[in-house]
């Protein structure tokens, strides 16, 4: 049997951590190129027209991974309730029909803890538990560190003194993280990595708006699809707060009476607007939005792939939230379009509106 060359789709910091982990398990890792116009062209050519845009882009990612020599692919999906849920098997069949014979593993973002254990069992075949301690510590460390980098980036962008400085520092930090190979090295270098960002000249006193970013995780993690939404918001003087931290998605909350489980809290807060799971991230989206609406943010931005059924349900639930709590919500949906003018107009108008609201409150 030929040795496994595994690929994980390019999903920002999540892939950094996943690739690090797979490498630590002794696997050869093939990194596909970042999602680009070419990825989109491949996806649109080979997928049915009615599929959602994440499905199409992911298929393009898989092809690009196979082109680079991957023979095993971790596909997003599983037995979820959105279209992405059932897509992995179809994507695999589509890959075969293009002549790429790859082993397929599924990783379901909605049941990340479960699938993480599942994948570990598949890939770490024959290893003792003790041999897994190192890789798992590396994975957790990578997740925590990349989450930290993202959080600092989102806070720095609206406050930077030189346009683009934060993004340059972030790119350098992520490149450094991608080179980390074991938990000891991570421990030793993490402060250096973070200090790259802390060194960005910024004005901590500059007044900024706080916006919560809720909605589909794939859209939020893929700048190609969201037309660099977070960067644009930073430029407009907005500190963005993503509704999820990757660490929390992968690591299950500790059991016990004292735990502070934000996820469960969110589901409780959102149950008034959306009482049951309708697939995708809809329930978490609405829940987090409800928590953030309790004075944590000036407004909310809800992103969805055009045509995404779970997020359409979430969008309707957010209408009720907006009416009851008075928190402004801007809905953005993304598809194949690559023109940014429409999005920028909406963001500028939203930001204008929120500043006017804040001035009126006397803030």
């Amino acid at each position, binding site marked *: 049997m030929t040795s496994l060359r595994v690929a994980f789709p390019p999903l920002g910091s999540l892939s950094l951590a996943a690739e690090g982990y797979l490498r630590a398990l002794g696997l050869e890792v093939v990194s596909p190129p970042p999602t680009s116009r070419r990825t989109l062209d491949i996806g649109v050519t080979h997928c049915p027209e009615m599929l959602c845009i994440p499905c199409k882009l992911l298929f393009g990612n898989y092809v690009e991974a196979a082109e680079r020599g991957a023979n095993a692919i971790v596909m997003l999906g599983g037995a979820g309730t959105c279209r992405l849920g059932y897509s992995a098997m179809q994507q695999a069949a589509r890959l075969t029909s293009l002549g790429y014979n790859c082993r397929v593993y599924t990783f379901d973002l909605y049941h990340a803890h479960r699938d993480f254990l599942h994948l570990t069992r598949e890939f770490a075949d024959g290893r003792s538990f003790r041999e897994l301690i190192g890789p798992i510590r590396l994975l957790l460390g990578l997740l925590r560190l990349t989450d930290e980098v993202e959080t600092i980036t989102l806070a720095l962008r609206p406050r930077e003194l030189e346009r683009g400085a934060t993004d340059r520092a972030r790119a350098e930090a992520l490149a450094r993280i991608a080179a980390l190979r074991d938990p000891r090295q991570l421990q030793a270098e993490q402060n250096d990595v973070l200090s790259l960002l802390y060194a960005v000249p910024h004005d901590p006193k500059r007044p900024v708006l706080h916006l919560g970013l809720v909605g589909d995780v794939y859209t939020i993690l893929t700048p190609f699809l969201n037309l660099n939404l977070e960067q644009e918001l930073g430029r407009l003087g907005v500190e963005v707060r993503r509704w999820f931290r990757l660490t929390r998605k992968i690591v299950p909350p500790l059991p016990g009476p004292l735990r502070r489980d934000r996820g469960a809290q969110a589901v409780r807060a959102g149950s008034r607007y959306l009482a049951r799971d309708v697939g995708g991230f809809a329930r978490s989206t609405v829940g987090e939005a409800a928590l953030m609406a309790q004075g944590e943010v000036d407004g909310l931005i809800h992103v969805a792939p055009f045509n995404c059924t779970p997020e359409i349900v979430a969008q309707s639930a957010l*209408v009720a939230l907006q009416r009851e709590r008075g928190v402004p919500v801007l809905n953005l949906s993304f598809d194949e379009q690559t023109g940014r003018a429409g999005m*920028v107009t909406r963001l500028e108008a939203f930001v204008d509106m929120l500043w006017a609201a804040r001035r009126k409150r006397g803030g």
Partner: protein
Amino acid sequence: MLEVFLGIDVGSVTTKIAAVDREGQLTASLYRRTEGRPIEVVQESLRQIQAILPTDVDVAGVGTTGSGRQLAAVVVGADLVKNEITAHAVAALHFVPDVHTVMDIGGQDSKLIILEDGIVVDFAMNSVCAAGTGSFLEQQAHRLNISIEELGRRAMRSRHPVRIAGRCTVFAESDMIHKQQMGHPVDDILYGLCQALVRNYLNNLALGKMLRPPVVFQGGVAANAGVVRAFAEALETEVIVPPQHEVMGALGAALLVRERMNGQPTRFRGFGAAEIEYRTSSFECRACPNRCEIAEIRVGREVVARWGGRCDRWEMA
């Protein structure tokens, strides 16, 4: 000497210019097609507005808005570049200070703005598709070989409008053809079309929002009496169409720049900007697989603006 502030609204289909004096009174305005060549049309509009304005006029500030606002700002030298939501809200407030609801339907997009005590508290714009906007009405008028003005007049005569599917312009068109082949009077089909446009607008943009009076309706489509009637019937309230409804975006930009300028010098290039030769070109950046299309605007050999990239590599304005 008359001091004016200019507002320029470069929309997808039409370009508008408004001039206001120090008191905010509209002194001149202009409305024409963008014709797919925004730079030349902005320059020609500048020449035309200069011809309308008194000769000793002094331009104290320029604001641009609309989807071509960045481009217009480079061409004329603008002091303020503002999104069209804010510009339209400001203009509506100027005419109806206690306005609650502003509806704007233009050539390619539609907007809904909700105000509370004079500030914008909510808004919506049509999403990925241009169904239910001016371009569609125009296309249908053309198909029936009547002018867009006549479409409005004839829709007003309708007594028993027929139902037209408004969800998608393609569906609407086949529905209209079907009704026409069944022998329904054209007036009733036309008013049915206006009602379909209104239904589409309300379903798309007004989801969960309270459209309280006073309601102001502006943009090019507000000239269509049939659509105004359909809105008034659907909302069961009076719909106010301001006299300069088609130049409201430009007026808003002019009013905003009037507020902004506190006697500092304007960046306006002067009416001579109409004579500058701007050359545009584009190229594909090959630094990463995104292959962004970068557009470049030059005066002589000097690059005055460059944009279109996903990163800051080439951007300048």
